[in-house]
């Protein structure tokens, strides 16, 4: 037992590192999800329901937002999925720097534990995941926990970036040209380029916050020559690109699932990679001001970034066309992972289109910081991303565990969460149009949204039921599922064709050999 535990904790095998990331990020999802349930119960009726202390609500919300983004989605996508899939997909024995990889997963766990300390320290942070000063420097809450959590996870992510870019650049199997990479591998490359460029900016911002609060500097204090908007600009200069660090890998893995279950070539590969991913990379750093449309910045900046923000619809639209185009003349089988992938398309479509009113600066003067915003970004990122991650866990389940999950239980979990998500986040947008602001412990001024709030709470319980079914299915499947073959889906990609389930350390019994005709999507040759 002890030896087995040690072999996991001190592992340098990318697959085990990946699974350590998966466990940590699912734990973060579970705890942040419990916070969401508490918030939803509190909001069910006007007036205090669960607690009469608004501070308590604020701490739940802080933890929910920070943990879902920094502890769940980014690590699940760029930690778990990148680790598990990239070396297998490119035909490498491991990542370039396995020990650095182990270090980054330890840092990630340290970050998670630090975030969890929120629940035991006397004055937990209440600064929301955005941490705006001067509130963050004036509050009794412990802003240092926020800053250090961000710094640890950011550092871990930088190590991951160095590692994965090196791996993809130098360790592809002989014969695997750039235009033969899996779409998911591309998405990880672009996501980590974005991380490497922008994480240091976030690190700077939260470090300045730390200095202001604890060491008496006045970067953000106008009474002493500082400026409150510097922080907001720095923060979003990172955090808008950060949504692409989530978006690209979750679309990338969705492409893999769709291609596999449609047994089809990815539609217009180069358009997807260069137009879609490349376009997003180009625009990522020029749109942050759409988070500051009401912050009194100069008009030319707000209007200018309205145009750049709207232009994001171009690469994102191409990515959608590629995804839907991959269904065209495919042969689609509706297994659980595929249902989740189609769910991603559905949520991302609604989320993307409801981003357009936010992008239009004048419409945003009403919508900014209302419930419309969390409604929109849950659709486009939180829910779409979660569905991609859940779909990916199902997709890789036979590979990771060597066993099959239970199909109809999987579908039941899918439908419950799918319905529940819509019951929560559609009303959330409607409450925002009514004018209810976000981050509200109570809403006595907006009695007209109480019915919507009740619907949302009901929906949250449906999601909870769906998540429990899913979790149960995973645990059952891992313990006593039927043994899985090496390639249960009939995929053409290396992780399925060249490695057993689960792959041994070193991954491939024989180094994969790729003919000139090889492609991870070489379907239809014998149609």
């Amino acid at each position, binding site marked *: 037992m002890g030896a087995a535990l040690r072999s996991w904790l001190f592992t340098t095998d990318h697959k085990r590192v990946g699974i350590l990331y998966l466990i940590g990020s699912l734990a973060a999802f579970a705890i942040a999800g419990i916070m969401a349930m508490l918030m939803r119960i509190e909001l069910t009726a006007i007036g205090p329901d669960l607690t009469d202390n*608004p501070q308590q609500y*604020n701490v739940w919300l802080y933890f929910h937002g920070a943990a879902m983004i920094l502890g769940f989605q980014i690590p699940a996508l760029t930690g778990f999925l990148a680790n598990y899939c990239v070396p297998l997909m490119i035909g490498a024995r491991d990542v370039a720097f396995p020990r650095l990889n182990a270090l980054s997963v330890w840092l990630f766990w340290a970050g998670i534990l630090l975030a969890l300390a929120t629940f035991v320290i006397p004055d937990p942070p209440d600064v929301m995941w*955005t941490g*705006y000063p*001067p509130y963050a420097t*004036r509050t009794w809450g412990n802003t240092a926990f926020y800053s250090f959590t961000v710094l640890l996870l950011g550092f871990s992510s930088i190590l991951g970036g160095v590692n994965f870019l090196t791996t993809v650049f130098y360790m592809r199997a002989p014969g695997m040209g750039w235009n033969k990479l899996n779409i998911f591998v591309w998405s990880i490359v672009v996501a980590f380029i974005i991380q490497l460029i922008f994480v240091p900016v976030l690190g700077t911002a939260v470090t300045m916050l730390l200095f202001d609060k604890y060491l008496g500097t006045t970067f953000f204090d*106008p*009474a002493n020559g*500082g*400026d409150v*908007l510097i922080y907001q600009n720095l923060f979003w200069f990172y955090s808008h690109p950060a949504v692409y660090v989530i978006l690209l890998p979750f679309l990338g893995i969705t492409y893999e699932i769709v291609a596999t279950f*449609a*047994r089809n*070539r990815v*539609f*217009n590969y*180069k*358009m997807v990679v260069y*137009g879609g991913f490349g376009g997003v990379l180009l625009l990522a750093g020029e749109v942050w001001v759409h988070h500051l449309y*009401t912050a009194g910045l100069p*008009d030319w900046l707000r*209007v200018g970034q*309205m145009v750049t923000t*709207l*232009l994001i*619809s*171009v690469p994102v*639209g*191409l990515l959608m*066309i590629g995804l839907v185009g991959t*269904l*065209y*003349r*495919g*042969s*689609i*089988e*509706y297994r659980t992972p595929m249902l989740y992938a189609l769910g991603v398309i559905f949520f991302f479509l*609604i989320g993307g289109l409801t981003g*357009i*009113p936010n992008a*239009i*600066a*004048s419409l945003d*003067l*009403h919508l*900014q*910081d209302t419930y419309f915003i969390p409604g929109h970004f849950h659709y486009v990122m939180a829910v779409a991303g979660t569905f991609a991650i859940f779909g990916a866990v199902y997709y890789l389940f036979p590979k990771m565990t060597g066993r099959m999950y239970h199909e109809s239980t999987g579908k039941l979990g899918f439908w419950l969460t799918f319905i529940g998500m819509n019951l929560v986040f559609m009303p959330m947008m409607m409450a925002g149009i009514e*004018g*209810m*602001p976000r*981050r*509200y412990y*109570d809403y*006595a*001024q907006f009695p007209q949204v109480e019915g919507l709030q009740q619907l949302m709470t009901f929906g949250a319980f449906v999601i909870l039921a769906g998540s429990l079914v899913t979790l149960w299915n995973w645990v059952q499947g891992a313990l006593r599922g039927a043994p899985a073959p090496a390639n249960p889906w*009939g995929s053409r990609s290396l992780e399925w064709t060249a490695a057993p389930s689960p792959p041994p350390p070193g991954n491939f019994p024989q180094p994969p050999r790729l003919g000139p005709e090889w492609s991870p999507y070489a*379907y*239809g040759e014998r*149609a």
Partner: protein
Amino acid sequence: MHESLRRLAPVLLLPAPAAALAGGEGIPDPAAGWDRLWDEMLVDITLIGVVFAAVTAWFMWRFRRRHPDEEGCPPRLGTGAAVGWAVVPAFVFMADDFFLAAKGWELWQQYRTVPEGALEVRLDSAMWSWTYTYPNGAVTVNELRVPAGRPVLLRMTSRDVVHSHFIPDFRVKEDSMPGRITYLWFYPKRPGEHVVACAEYCGLLHSRMAGKVIVMEPEAFAAWYRAAGRRADAAARDEGEV
């Protein structure tokens, strides 16, 4: 800074022309513009959404797997088709983007161009209340009284953290923060009451930082305004004597 604001205010107020009070011909109403643009935008995105969803649903049905070992037979795109499939949609999306941006900008200009003759009120936000100071020195808390038929301009700053003065019925908000002065304006046309909410997280009582815009008949407002001004003068004199 605050002093200069105070000095400026009467200048803006004095020429407050009878025309503006009488009904404001030719003054655009951003809130109405918002509702119009919202509807147009909704048509736009619904159309795109329905087309995408319909195509996807059709593919999902048409290309479902019929035999277990069936595979897709994807079209092989030539260079021309591949480039076309990227460039044509890109231009379609871009056209829609510029169309929406132009509309958005037009409305933006209305939101940011304060009409002449607006009633200028200074707002100081603080955890957790709104303090309004009128040109004649009258001060109210959490209650912005304004006359119907005259645009209102708020010049805003904050005494502590960032807040955001949001009037949902007038479809407008703008942050108020220490060390900077921001503004917003709106156009109340009929007497009535409207909710004011704080839209930027500001701690414990963020959700309770509520106020009201009370739009009054112009005569009633004038009477209230004179009386409130006299009270403010008296209070200032008292303070001077102490």
